């Protein structure tokens, strides 16, 4: 996960996306412990309230759960949230490509190719 404080994307959203991406790529598995707010704040030297905010949103969306005194853990069954986030991001990219004049055929071709590569 990387955090870019210069980015236009708010830091809490970068953390949110980072965790969902790690989960989607199976780099974090259900039940696995996440780094604490303190660890993440120090690693990226960012404000702990910002990290706590991202954790709060992840918990609200059922992606993580927290155990008082123990920390935060990845939930199971978060796939639908991650997939709907991925859908939204894919749609945004498609709209952008369309604006730049990319044909539907070409887009489908790219989708097929990247599908094969993975």
């Amino acid at each position: 996960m990387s955090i870019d404080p210069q980015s236009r994307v708010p830091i809490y959203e970068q953390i949110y996306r980072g965790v969902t991406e790690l989960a989607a790529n199976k780099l974090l598995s259900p039940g696995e412990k996440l780094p604490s707010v303190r660890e993440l704040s120090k690693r990226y030297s960012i404000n702990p309230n910002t990290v706590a905010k991202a954790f709060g949103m992840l918990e609200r969306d059922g992606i993580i759960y927290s155990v008082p005194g123990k920390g935060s853990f990845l939930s199971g069954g978060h796939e639908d949230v991650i997939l709907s986030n991925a859908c939204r991001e894919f749609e945004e990219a498609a709209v952008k490509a369309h604006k730049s004049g990319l044909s539907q055929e070409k887009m489908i071709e790219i989708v097929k190719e990247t599908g094969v590569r993975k």
Partner: protein
Amino acid sequence: MITLSGVTKLFDGVPALDNADLEIPTGVSYGLLGSNGAGKSTLLRLISGTYRSDGGKVLIDGEEIFDNARVREKVFFINDETVQFGRFTLKELKNFYKGYYPKFSDEVFDELAKKVQLPMDKRTDKFSKGMKRQSIVITGLACRTDYLLLDEAFDGLDPTMRIIVKRMLVDAILDRGLTTVISSHNLKEINEVCDTVALLHKGRIVFNRDLDSVKGNIHKVQAAFPENRSKEDFVSPNILHFDKNGSVCHIIMRGDENMIKEYLAPYSPMFLDIIPMTLEEIFIYEMEGLGYKADEITEGGEAL
């Protein structure tokens, strides 16, 4: 909690701070933005009890700070005038502050001084500028006050020291609910370290909101419309900036994504891109809205 109500500070009859109302809750990391002379340092000096206000009240946890030793020991103000170095060695300086701040930590002081390799037995007035700055910051952190004020926070600190300070602030915020008020021209740093920001201009507080809502509430819009549109077609107090490049309109607009979409819908845009802005861009456009433009400043001119 830090509370300012109707605070005014005059210098030769001219307000450096003009009827300011502000509440800074405990545990918040507060960033002060503003051009030179906006009143940031004056505000910090009032909060630290260095200045007496010419009107209104400056309260720390409900009590006036000026001339109140019991309240002043809750606050440490890191700026270049805080510490009078004189003939003191660092060891003597430490003992001086230790006597004044009840929660002073020898451990924090010694560990930090060692980390940045400051000599304990050398006269501090012989220190370089950077070493003096390090000494003040180390002292400020070791005093372990409930409130830490940083004027031009990270000036004169090398990258390693910056990271050390930021990590210590993380611990202090989490472990004892430290409240920090930070002024800095480095907006990247404010963006990292703070969760709430205020913009000051000519002694007035223009806005005062949590950082994410500041960032979510202004956008850069790129759009093209079927008819030939000009600036005059878009009349809204939320539009801070408009220019046109060929058929593409560049608009800086207040509001979240949905509000902007809704506002522009009647113009039936052929394409519409709504992009979040960096804190630096927001600062520049807000200042432009206040009549403080970067492109009007020339080498010969004076920046306020």
